[in-house]
């Protein structure tokens, strides 16, 4: 683990230099969605589950920002470090293991996920769209989906050889997550089989938890979502290590 922390220090230094640009694209996009959907659809929709449409939408944007941050860092970011910059190979010549390097990537993705999710949370709270103080638990919760999205992304990135394949991941994995994850409308409006599939959608679980905490309706049901996310995390954790080892060690 100490090796992973030393690798993470490299990422931290880069973060210190680049956080302003990061803030721009990680935060602007969810806020644009919020504005467009909030004003556009919000004019048509009166209330959902006792919330205004903006209150319904806001926690979804927090979960979305958290997903994007982890995903982009651990797909495009990791791919660049692995194939173009060879930064990971350079680090591996130092006194660390592949496991340290993979953990470093995952920790960095998780950190960015929690950070930018929290930034959106602060913004929508300042806009008055977060009714409950229980929402303060959201940043703590975000570690879980943050780590999971990082694991998924590093595993996929380690499994592919061409940067073009990252587009498949974004279009065929991340887009469905966010279109069907119940960010813009309640999942109960979807056909039954899509609702069933949503149990495999980490963003769906993440949105459910964020929304309940934001509305101040924590229930034992939330533990179920947390449990599913944790299960996915533990099941998928070996994958990034296995794929990245193949890429880094010949």
């Amino acid at each position, binding site marked *: 683990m100490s090796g992973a922390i030393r690798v993470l220090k490299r990422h931290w230094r880069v973060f210190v230099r680049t956080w302003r640009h990061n803030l721009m694209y990680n935060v602007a996009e969810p806020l644009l969605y919020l504005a467009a959907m909030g004003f556009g659809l919000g004019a048509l929709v009166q209330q959902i589950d006792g919330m205004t449409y903006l209150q319904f939408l806001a926690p979804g944007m927090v979960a979305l920002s958290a997903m994007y941050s982890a995903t982009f860092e651990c797909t495009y970011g990791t791919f660049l470090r692995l194939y173009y910059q060879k930064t990971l190979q350079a680090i591996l*010549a130092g006194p660390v293991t592949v496991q340290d390097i993979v953990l470093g990537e995952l920790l960095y993705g998780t950190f960015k996920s929690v950070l930018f999710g929290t930034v959106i949370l602060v913004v929508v709270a300042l806009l008055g769209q977060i009714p409950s103080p229980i929402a303060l638990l959201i940043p703590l919760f975000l570690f879980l989906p943050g780590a999971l999205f990082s694991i998924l992304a590093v595993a996929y990135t380690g499994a592919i050889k061409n940067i073009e394949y990252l587009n498949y991941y974004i279009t065929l994995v991340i887009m469905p997550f966010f279109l069907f994850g119940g960010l813009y409308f309640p999942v109960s409006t979807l056909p039954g089989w899509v609702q069933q599939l949503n149990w495999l959608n980490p963003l769906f679980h993440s949105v459910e938890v964020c929304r309940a905490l934001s509305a101040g309706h924590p229930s034992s049901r939330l533990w179920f979502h947390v449990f599913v996310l944790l299960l996915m995390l533990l099941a998928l954790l070996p994958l990034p290590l296995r794929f990245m080892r193949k890429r880094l060690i010949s």
Partner: protein
Amino acid sequence: MKNVIVASNLQKHYGDFHALKGVSFAIREGECFGLLGHNGAGKSTTMKMIYGLSTVEEGSLTIFDQHISLTPPEIKHRLGVVPQEDNLDPDLPVLENLEVYAGLFGVSRREARESSLAMLSFMGLESKEQSSVDTLSGGQKRRLIIARALLNQPQLLILDEPTTGLDPQGRHLVWQKLRALKSEGVTLILTTHYMEEAAQLCDRLIIMHEGLVLTEGTPVELVCAHVLSHVIEIRSPLDTIPDDINEKVRQFGGETLQVMDGLFLYANDGKALWQKIGEWGLPQHSCFLRRSTLEDVFLKLTGRGTEP
């Protein structure tokens, strides 16, 4: 003398490609050991096995008396690595490239800065401290990579083509630094395409070809063992050279070697051979007499030169 590395019968496959077919050598403490060979001869594969980017598939590798299959962090702690490719971190400026790398060895931030500044000045890059890595010239990048490899004061420095792409000044600068390190007792392992570099720096070397070690020795030993002491390079097209030249050289007690589209004539008495070639119908103005070097050994052994 103590051996730092002992490799015995190392083998490696990449799919169908048999990259190493049984490579054995031993590297002694404090010497500069060279690995010579074409691209694809197995030099880099051997180097990667030593510095932990490749596993030992078959055979045995011992580094600092420890038997390894994949070099662990404790051993990498004592190594310095100059890889063949430029893998400086473009996300960080020059000084931070070094500080981050020093940090991997678990030193404090202050120590990391001190050793980084010391190495920048050792490699003559003080003025580049805050520069972006992308703005450095090829030679400066190479020097920065060497500086990075020295941060942990390695006992064993692994240099995979350290001077490829450098101008003559840059190359001489790197050679001087490497000699300075050797005089401090650092063991060096070097791969290179430049025979002059190998002759200048290496105490002993092996010539590799298609995954095998062809020969081993000091540069002088190898020249004595494999080629006659002088060579005349004929610099006119092959079809203008009289057909019976090979026969005549052999009768004279020499040897010939065809190198691509040129012909090399070897003899121990170079001056006498030089006198003869005029008689044999070779114009001296298109010929060049010199002492044989490691390059001649390399050309002869690795088959880019062919004996008729």
